């Protein structure tokens, strides 16, 4: 659901087919019948942007039919917690909403706690203010009729999906939800994933083999780069980035504010201090708070759209675009291209000249004479021309070796960054401006020669070592907050525990039990393969079932044993305090059915997309009330009278992202050589369009020309007595490379999720007509 | 013609148009034969380099194929009378035509035989003509499908290969006999000059095509050999 693994993550699909050979069932929920759907046992269409009603309906189905895993829910989730009086939900809004700031006062969603701060629980789940009862009440509105009237799913198909998936609530059964950008690229993206989380917690499907909610990562190393602080709100290892707030003014204040008392994150000071030591080396001392003051702090939204908005307004001087092609891949791409021309300089690092690094050229439809942006293009190595690790969706850090020498003057990203850092440091060496101070404080000693740093030195820094002896630490349990340990990224600590022993290079493909391959590469944290695997055993430490056993408590050895590295303190017995709290990264040690930390509410609630052809049937709130709305020409909104058709974007197997890698490859280009728009036979008939016709798709942002692909695989949504049409298109195309075509993202809006700011690429309004 | 006082009296049997048409036909036939031979049997694969490679051989084959089609038109346009006569003769079959064959076999192998009275074309030539017409239609028709397979359903093209092969097989068999008779065979070879110069010895013409000869004598075109008492000599 929200993923099309056969087309976009084919290798993951291989394992789905293997699971089916063992009796598994594949369910495909997608607006369009895809290559994944072709292999599915069950297929249910839904209108783009209605995931919460669909999953909300499943949650209701599981509760109403008593299909949820009661003991798991009572013991391992916060369903038994009591929410403080005053929490309410009325007409689409949770309590604490402030219309002016478009935000919630989250203190209205807190749990009742005992004096020591631990939440009060009612494991009978009957307290009317228990999370469970609130959940039940919240989703009582998501009855089948309402759901299918919103999603457009045929009722039978919906019920079949509910029946099949909720059957995994029994011990001995498990089900996984694989999702990708079809889930996240919405104004309610985070809540879509949350809905999956709630359903999986109810069914007891987290922490056991074949369970979980699995994000299919769209880039080979997006997991690794996210782990290393790719997101603007995070430092490496998911340590929150400090902001320009009084609470973050000093390290002490930051740690006090951001360190929970319980759960594994209570070790945060050790991770942050060790990281500061890695960055600032000898310049990080106890006296100067380990160089904490050097970390840049700001209060703005530094997400993609916000940056381009600022760029468009002329607020940015320059930008580095490393392996990114926003003129094809960014939302409202036409406007993003315009924004680039407001820059003074731009550095693009890529394998090819992309539509972005060539945005100023005539071919791009620009007038070079009117653009003052100075563009530097640094040729980068492909993955085959360099060594390093790639982390997959299962958090396996797999080392790869160089296959061929780099072509031409191209360099590995690591070499480019290393080169930049050493040169910048040289430039500022004799200066004492504030900017120079932070640069001079940076400890950049990675050995090697010239532009080539010693990659092992970097690996060792990531793993961590003793500041005095230089001895590598075994794992993050050895990290300290007094500046005596150095660690670049705590979650990876342990992958290089001894000199010359890089565990990500391991290639032992022997099944070490339970389908785990513990000696193949390294999975963070601590080589654990199944997160929260304590949940695979019942509170007493016995596996819920033999079939799905992962770890169990061995009373004789007095430790947790099994097929995987316990994601738990291995010597804490089930009867000890915390011994029944599998979700160790959560403050309270249990799964969060109720999430009082998100911006748009503790329970997922359906709101229509930014642009929708129908009114919200659940409440008066049309759109997620907490999304940030960019103003002005950067964010034009289309209405349903002019643009009655839902548009969505996606990828095809043959191309990758903005197409830079694949449209420059002839063998892939010939397989998917043309920009196309998929539409139903019904819509084509209505519009007088025949298969293969050239058509024009327009939205409030722009219009594009492409070929019509009229297909039986798209069917109009019939809901609430109305017919709503939907079309879909790949977003890979641009004017460069062998396979060229108009860029779908010229149609997409500048609006994003309330928590992550991911743009809403997957549901927008448009119209189609024949091109001639 | 008859006035020419040569050792052997010559009479015109064929028009120049026919002579040219026949020459073109014969040339094209052999050119087609040779350019196709390496395709027909691997024994002649050594011809490929001689012909400039398979591609050139195919090109030549197509050029000669066009040439092969032209003789009919040359004859038809430049000697419509002769062409018409041919067609007329082809459809005229009498008892003597049948008798011809028994005698022909004797003649062929050098036994004693008697001339069955024949008109312009004897029955053998008519049969030859028929076979050549049919095989030409087969070969040319199927050749089209092979040259332009995209214009025809696949099954037609597939049968085209067979027919081309069949037509060729028949044609070459007949042609071998035809050439033998005209060039080598003692009794019929005097007629050979007919397709080279258009003229044949009068005595031979009278012997082989008495009806025609007599007709022409009556018209005053040919000398009456009996009256002139000219003893023709063997060629």
């Amino acid at each position, binding site marked *: 659901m929200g993923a099309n693994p056969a087309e976009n993550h084919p290798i993951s699909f291989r394992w789905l087919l293997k699971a089916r050979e063992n009796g598994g069932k594949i369910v495909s929920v997608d607006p369009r019948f895809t290559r994944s759907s072709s292999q599915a046992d069950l297929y249910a269409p839904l209108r783009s942007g209605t995931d919460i009603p669909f999953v909300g309906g499943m949650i209701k189905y599981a509760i109403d039919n008593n299909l949820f895993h009661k003991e798991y829910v009572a013991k391992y989730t916060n369903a038994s917690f009591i929410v403080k009086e005053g929490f309410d939900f009325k007409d689409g809004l949770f309590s604490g909403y402030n219309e002016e700031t478009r935000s919630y006062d989250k203190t209205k969603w807190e749990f009742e706690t005992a004096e020591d701060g631990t939440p009060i629980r009612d494991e009978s789940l009957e307290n009317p203010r228990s999370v469970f009862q609130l959940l039940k009440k919240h989703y009582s509105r998501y009855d089948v009729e309402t759901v299918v009237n919103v999603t457009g799913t045929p009722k039978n198909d919906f019920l079949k999906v509910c029946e099949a998936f909720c059957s995994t609530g029994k011990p001995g059964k498990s089900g996984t939800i694989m999702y990708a950008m079809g889930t996240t690229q919405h104004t309610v993206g985070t809540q879509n994933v949350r809905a999956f989380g709630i359903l999986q917690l109810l069914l007891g499907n987290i922490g056991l083999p074949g369970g979980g909610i699995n994000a299919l990562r769209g880039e080979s190393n997006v997991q690794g780069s996210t782990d290393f602080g790719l997101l603007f709100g995070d430092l490496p290892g998911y340590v929150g980035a400090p902001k320009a707030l009084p609470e973050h003014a000093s390290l002490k204040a930051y740690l006090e504010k951001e360190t929970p008392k319980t759960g594994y994150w209570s070790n945060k000071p050790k991770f942050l201090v060790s990281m500061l030591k890695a960055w600032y080396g000898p310049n990080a001392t106890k006296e100067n708070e380990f160089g904490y003051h050097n970390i840049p702090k700001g209060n703005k939204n530094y997400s993609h759209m916000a940056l381009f908005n600022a760029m468009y307004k002329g607020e940015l001087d320059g930008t580095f675009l490393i392996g990114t092609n926003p003129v094809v891949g960014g939302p409202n791409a036409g406007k993003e291209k315009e924004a680039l021309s407001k820059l003074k300089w731009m550095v693009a690092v890529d394998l090819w000249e992309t539509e972005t690094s060539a945005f100023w050229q005539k071919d791009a439809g620009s007038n070079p004479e009117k653009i003052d942006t100075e563009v530097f293009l640094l040729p980068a190595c492909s993955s085959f021309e360099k060594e390093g690790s790639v982390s997959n969706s299962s958090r396996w850090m797999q080392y790869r070796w160089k296959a061929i020498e780099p072509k031409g003057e191209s360099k590995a990203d690591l070499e480019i960054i290393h080169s930049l850092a050493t040169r910048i440091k040289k430039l500022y060496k004799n200066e004492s401006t504030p900017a120079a101070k932070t640069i001079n404080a940076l400890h950049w000693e990675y050995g090697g020669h010239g532009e080539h740093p010693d990659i092992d030195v970097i690996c060792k820094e990531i793993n961590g070592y003793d500041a005095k002896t230089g001895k590598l630490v075994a794992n993050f349990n050895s990290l300290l907050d007094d500046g005596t340990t150095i660690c670049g990224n705590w979650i990876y600590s342990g992958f290089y525990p001894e000199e010359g022993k890089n565990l990500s290079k391991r290639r032992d493909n022997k099944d070490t039990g339970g389908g785990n391959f513990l000696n193949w590469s390294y999975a963070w944290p601590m080589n654990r393969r199944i997160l929260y695997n304590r949940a695979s055993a019942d509170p007493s430490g016995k596996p819920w079932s033999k079939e799905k056993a992962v770890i169990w408590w061995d009373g004789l050895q007095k430790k947790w044993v099994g097929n995987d590295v316990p994601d738990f303190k291995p010597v804490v017995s089930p009867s000890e305090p915390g011994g029944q709290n599998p979700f160790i990264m959560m403050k309270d040690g249990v799964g969060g059915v109720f999430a009082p930390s998100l911006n748009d509410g503790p329970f997922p609630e359906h709101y229509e997309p930014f642009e929708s052809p129908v009114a919200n049937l659940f409440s008066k709130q049309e759109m997620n009330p907490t999304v940030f709305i960019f103003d002005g020409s950067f964010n034009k909104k289309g209405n349903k009278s002019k643009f009655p058709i839902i548009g969505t974007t996606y990828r095809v197997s043959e191309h990758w992202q903005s197409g830079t890698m694949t449209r420059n490859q002839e063998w892939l280009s010939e397989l998917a050589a043309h920009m196309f728009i998929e539409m139903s036979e019904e819509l084509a008939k209505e519009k007088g369009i025949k298969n293969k016709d050239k058509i024009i798709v327009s939205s409030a942002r722009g219009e594009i020309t492409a070929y019509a692909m009229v297909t039986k695989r798209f069917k109009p949504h019939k809901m609430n007595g109305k017919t709503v049409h939907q079309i879909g298109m790949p977003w890979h195309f641009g004017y460069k490379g062998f396979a060229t075509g108009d860029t779908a993202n010229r149609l997409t809006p500048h609006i994003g999720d309330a928590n992550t700011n991911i743009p809403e690429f997957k549901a927008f309004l448009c119209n189609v007509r024949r091109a001639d | 013609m008859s006035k020419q006082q040569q050792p052997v009296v010559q009479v015109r049997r064929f028009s120049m148009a026919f002579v040219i048409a026949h020459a073109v036909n014969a040339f094209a036939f052999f050119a087609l034969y040779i350019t196709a031979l390496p395709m027909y049997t691997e024994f002649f694969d050594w011809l490929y380099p001689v012909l400039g490679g398979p591609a050139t051989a195919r090109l030549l084959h197509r050029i000669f194929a066009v040439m092969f089609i032209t003789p009919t038109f040359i004859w038809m346009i430049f000697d419509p009378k002769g062409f018409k006569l041919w067609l007329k003769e082809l459809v005229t079959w009498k008892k003597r035509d049948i008798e011809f064959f028994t005698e022909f076999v004797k003649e062929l*192998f050098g036994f004693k035989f008697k001339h069955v009275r024949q008109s312009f074309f004897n029955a053998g030539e008519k049969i030859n003509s028929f076979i050549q017409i049919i095989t030409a239609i087969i070969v040319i028709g199927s050749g089209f499908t092979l040259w332009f397979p995209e214009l025809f359903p696949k099954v037609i093209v597939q049968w085209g290969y067979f027919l081309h092969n069949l037509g060729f097989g028949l044609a070459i068999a007949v042609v071998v006999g035809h050439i033998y008779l005209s060039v080598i065979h003692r009794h019929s070879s005097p007629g050979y000059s007919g397709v080279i110069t258009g003229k044949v010895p009068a005595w031979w013409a009278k012997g082989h095509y008495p009806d025609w000869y007599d007709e022409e004598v009556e018209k005053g075109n040919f000398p009456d050999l009996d009256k002139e008492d000219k003893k023709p000599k063997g060629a």
Partner: protein
Amino acid sequence: MVEYAKYVDVTKCDGCRACMVSCKNWNDLPAEPQDFLGSNQSHAKVTANTWNVLSFIEHENSKGNLEYLFRHSACFHCKEAACVKVCPEEALHYTDFGTVVINDEKCVGCGYCVQNCPFDVVSLATYKDKHGKEYKKAQKCTMCTDRLEEGMQPACVTVCHTGAMEFGEKDKMIQKAEKRLAEIKGKFPNANIYNPAGVGGTHAIYVLAEKPSVYGLPENPKVPTSAVIWKDYAQPIGKMMLGATTMAVIGAYISNKIFYKEDHGHDENGGGSNE
């Protein structure tokens, strides 16, 4: 000699087309961009430079349900191959693996194989020699016979991530197909094993979810009757006729020589007498 076969279970194919790319990669074939075909399919059929094509079929089954069918289409490597039969140069031949391959050296580019293949998988490629002169060669999937000779698997098989393709001993592949057929009969009542007898069976054995015609395959492919008559009858008979005529002519020549000598002087007029 053990016969080998490629097993293709189209019901496991997810249409990723890695087989197409790996084929071009191993065999070093150029890209052939096509016009938009109105579906996800890239090429209408296999060509001289695209030896396997994944066909995409949207099929509504008898129950009215939509099926999105994929088929890896390439040479079937028939046991009795029409292309081998009609090849005038013996360029097309069978290998010890049971595969049918073209000897480039011998191929003269006549295209007989192209027209006679019941599956339409052979095509002519045009090349240029060093003098710039064009020449043609028939091309098609070789089942990577060059890899088989080195003990490797066909390139397409090695990249098939869903396990839709395998290569192995033909008997085992047929057993596999039969087992698979039994598994999927419930879901696909029309499922069948495609190993057509009209061409003596093939060395690419398919498990099809629907009737062959749904996949654009002939239901009962066979070596064209015309090719059989042509190659097994017409051509030998033609050669025989040519021989017979030649013999007749030679015989006639000799007998004429003999009788002419005997008769010489008796009858200069060849013994001919009018009436």
